[in-house]
């Protein structure tokens, strides 16, 4: 209902923000759109002493191209992502994923940086980010570093981010010709989070074989992951119904699925296969459409 009291800072620049996070470390929480943090604070499940509102750092809200990569500022809202022409043309998977997040109001305020830094195991973006081989750029007073999305997510609500670091942008490599992508999501009916989210990013070669295939899964386990075993079944092969089904069977290989009120581990595992297969089917048919 009502958060506990905290001290508030609204830095205007990244440098100022970095100085503040360095000074307050673990006792501070960064506030961007607020749609991960404020609900927790209102329930008093999060009780930071300092809140550093980075929402006014204009340099963090941008979408641009840089050396072939799509570079998305941390303060880019889900709505920006959903409606950006640049994202739509260069990386439709991200636009499609953004459109599946929460509801209109959430997409208007929630930011990509905030969502990634929160590390919610059921958030939507991580599936796409790991499938896209995106890099998450984090800054600290000592300098910046880039973390591969696949490494960034560590555990429940836990990422590679260290105290004193701020996510500043996400770099997404350009996707090859004749690629296709899709995000298929089974919504948790109450909260809208992903019970299972499967992101597929594939590319076909001129013979119709899968030149590359990446499958990112969210909601299934404590962190988003690449379904490598499933990818291995497909890579270099011509997709067929049988092959896709065989690959989909492997999307949760070696994974311990989460279990909660809304889905048991067995159900998550089964639906992960179904949704991965559907995402692959859609991605392939989209790639074929582009080809034609």
């Amino acid at each position, binding site marked *: 209902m009502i958060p506990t009291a905290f001290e508030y800072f609204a830095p205007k620049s990244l440098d100022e923000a970095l100085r503040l996070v360095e000074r307050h470390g673990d006792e501070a929480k960064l506030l961007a759109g607020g749609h991960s*943090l404020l609900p927790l604070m209102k329930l008093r499940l999060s009780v*930071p002493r300092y809140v550093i509102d980075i929402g006014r750092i204009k340099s963090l809200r941008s979408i641009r191209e840089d050396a072939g990569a799509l570079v998305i500022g941390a303060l880019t809202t889900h709505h920006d992502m959903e409606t950006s022409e640049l994202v739509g043309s260069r990386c439709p998977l991200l636009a499609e994923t953004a459109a599946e997040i929460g509801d209109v109001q959430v997409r208007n305020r929630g930011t990509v940086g905030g969502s990634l830094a*929160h590390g919610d195991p059921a958030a939507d973006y991580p599936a796409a980010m790991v499938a896209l081989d995106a890099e998450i750029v984090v800054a600290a007073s000592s300098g910046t570093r880039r973390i591969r999305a696949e490494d960034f997510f560590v*555990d429940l*609500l836990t*990422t590679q981010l260290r105290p004193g670091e701020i996510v500043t942008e996400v770099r997404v490599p350009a996707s090859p010709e004749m690629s296709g992508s899709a995000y298929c999501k089974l919504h948790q009916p109450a909260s809208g989070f992903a019970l299972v989210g499967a992101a597929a990013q594939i590319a076909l070669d001129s013979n119709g074989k899968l030149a590359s295939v990446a499958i990112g899964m969210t909601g299934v386990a404590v962190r988003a992951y690449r379904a490598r075993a499933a990818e291995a079944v497909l890579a270099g092969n011509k997709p067929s119904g049988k092959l896709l089904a065989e690959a989909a069977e492997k999307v949760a290989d070696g994974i311990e699925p989460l279990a909660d*009120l809304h889905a048991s581990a067995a159900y998550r595992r089964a639906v992960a296969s179904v949704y991965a297969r559907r995402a692959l089917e859609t991605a392939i048919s989209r790639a074929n459409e582009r080809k034609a």
Partner: protein
Amino acid sequence: MKIEGQYILPGPPEAVWERLNDPAILVKSLPGVETLEPDGPDRYRAKIQYKMGAVSGTFAGEVELSDKNPPHAMKLKTSARGGPGFVTAVGQLDLVAKGKETEVHYSGDLQLGGLLAAVGSRMMEGAAKKSIDEFFQAIATSLGNSSQ
């Protein structure tokens, strides 16, 4: 919520047993526990500062060791209560010698109350497993340190 698992710890059961019964080790190993004050035999009052990502909170807690059968088995009960509700974890620990190491089998029951039960259940099983991992990792580390 039932939780089960096993760990291999570097050292004989006697050494593991000693660590598990040492409040100085416990306070360092139990995730989030800041202080342990004795409150009767094998009972401690704890101050717990819990943090997992953005989730954080201060809880008052208790740690209790019981049904001891040194160095084979014991019950470890930890409980914490605070604004968002309470958590009680009762775990049975069984220690079995495996060569120079000890296999610890634990099986326990995790009970959540209040708001934690309502909104925390999505994460709680994972969080509990993570905490248990951290606990045994810390015990393992303490064993490693002493053997050096």
